[in-house]
């Protein structure tokens, strides 16, 4: 998929498990780029499916990058070989990657890293974390310190997802 000219590696600040992280060794390799010999990288789904064996044999970690329109289910059998799934939010109003993250955690019991890149804004972080994302490459215009506050806006959750949230009616049962 084309990236509409935007950079996949805009050098935004990285948050991992609610901590700001200075060092970001991962590079997201565009479809037309060559795969470098070293360094942690993500590749798009098409390349992964075509060159899976070589990529797994590579000495450094390779993650797979999904666009909102990609079919996650084709990765199902490969997940043990993938240390990181990168969800590319070309547009933050496109909610498909939320279901992708949820499925990775809940349907496929994926324990690797799930990172979002692209239009990653403070006010989405809480919801993204709830569906199972744990790494966030913030969009360049976001204030990193303030972004961390975005995780703590809510102390009450009404529904289960890929987090500690549980069915509110079950919680109420436990109170009686």
């Amino acid at each position, binding site marked *: 998929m084309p990236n509409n000219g935007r950079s996949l590696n805009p050098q935004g600040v990285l948050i991992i498990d609610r901590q700001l992280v200075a060092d970001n060794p991962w590079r997201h390799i565009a479809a037309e780029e060559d795969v470098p010999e070293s360094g942690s990288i993500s590749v798009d789904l098409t390349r992964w499916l075509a060159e899976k064996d070589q990529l797994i044999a590579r000495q450094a970690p390779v993650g797979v990058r999904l666009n909102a329109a990609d079919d996650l289910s084709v990765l199902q059998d490969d997940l043990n070989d993938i240390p990181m799934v990168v969800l590319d939010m070309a547009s933050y109003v496109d*909610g498909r990657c*939320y*279901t992708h993250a949820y499925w990775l955690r809940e349907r496929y019991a994926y324990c690797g890293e799930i990172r979002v890149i692209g239009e990653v804004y403070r006010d989405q972080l809480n919801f993204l974390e709830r*569906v199972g994302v744990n790494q966030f490459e913030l969009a360049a215009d976001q204030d990193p310190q303030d972004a961390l506050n975005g995780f703590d806006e809510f*102390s009450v959750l009404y*529904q289960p*997802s890929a987090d500690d949230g549980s*069915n509110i009616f*079950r919680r109420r049962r436990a109170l009686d």
Partner: protein
Amino acid sequence: MYQYDQFDHTLVRERVAEFRGQVERHLNGELSAEQLMPLRLRNGLYMQRHAHMLRVAIPYGLLSSKQMHMLAHIARKYDRDYGHFTTRQNIQYNWPELKDVPDLLEDLASVEMHAIQTSGNCIRNTTADQYAGVAVDELQDPRPYCEMIRQWSTLHPEFYWLPRKFKVAVTGAKNDRAAVLFHDIGLRVLKNEQDQLGLQVLVGGGMGRTPVIGQVIREFLPREHMLSYCEAILRIYNLHGNRDNKYKARIKILVKSLGIEEFRRQVDAEWEQIKDSDLVLKDEDFEQMQSFFKGPDYVVPSTDAKNGIDRVAKWRSLDTRFAHWYDNNTVEHKVDGYRIVVVSLKEPGVPPGDATADQMDHIADLAEQYSFGELRVTHDQNIIFADVAEADLLELWKKLDAQALATPNVGTLNDMICCPGLDFCSLANAGSIPIAKQINERFDSLDELYEIGELKIKMSGCMNACGHHHAGHIGILGVDKKGVEWYQLTLGGSAEDDAAIGERLGKAIAKEEVADAIDKLVSVYLQNRDKDERFLDTFRRIGIEPYQEKVYA
């Protein structure tokens, strides 16, 4: 009615705090107008033609007197002394200032109300039968189901950025008054042959540019699975709904393009994965929720009350105004000695659904005095007192009449549904309020209205169909032709069990000729009516041609 517990209070307060922060960041220049937009939408705040518009959720239309007083207070403090009740049982304010909205939301939170998810591409307020709990034909009160859906869908992290808005309605009565066939998901509470409670699940209905009648995706879903099945539907929609064209993005288009069989297959495959998850509900969850809606302690009419009932009967024979009001604006109640009272917000000359702050306060006081402190907003943009003792009707009528709230036109042609139209809405192509006024003025004789009988006119100022024109016995759609307002008429729509999409009459009508055209349609009906036939039934029997001949002669 439902009372918030610590969880609900905390969540709503935290939501206000979050939005306060977002507005502050915007006013400080840290959050652009473009970035704020989807965030404010999910807090009910639109940008309209002249100013911001805030839509406040009234879950399944139910309000306490205290809440109604707060709505009046908000109209005075943040708006221009009035509010507009909508067809989805909510209220809209047309003039709040952005900087004041967090305070406004905090005032709402103090009476267990909010504006969460009343706009934006997410799951909206769940609506229900306006006569829930008191209807004679009810099997199960739908409100506990609605409240459970409200909580499950509130800030659901996965379904906050859907392809398009998503609306759920629930009915538990024999006759559908919640338009379940015109919702993204419609639920009918029913029992199967083994006497188990469950839901018939409908999917893919909707109004808008492409009106579609919903289809059955599951004939009987045990109610314990209500949330998991809704979640499965939402997940398939979130992944596969159209995101390239907002006019093809509603679930109805996905269901149509896949076909109901394939859509059902995909939903069921997803549901298989989650049906035994944490989302399963237990009977005790329903019972606990139902305990909030068990209704007031009705009183068996005493001797005094019986005298009151006799007096009401006597006045009906003596005072035709009271008799008209009784016949049109009150409805049979499931409990003997009680009536449901419809407070008309359709005073001729006033925009349908508008109420002033003073009227809201009066309505709240009257509900306190005569209807156990509760009231409801209807799909037809009126207010209901659900539990009025028959003996109190005369007294209540006098008080409503003094506030211009007893116009005896409920169910008549003048009880129109109407969107705000060009006067307020930035989407509208044409005015709807002036057309309502024109029709009111043309049909100013109550005797004539009663002679015509039940005739639902529904009007939208543009094809987004907020006034549900597709489902009107007569539908009126405002269109713009080279800067001039014209009106497209449809006939034969219905939102009830006999759901139908109105048929186009013909070319659009000039603005000043709409009431004349309605008059002609009515005359065709009156000439062809068979005994007590409704307008809709005559139309269905004789077809559209006689109407076309008359209007375009």
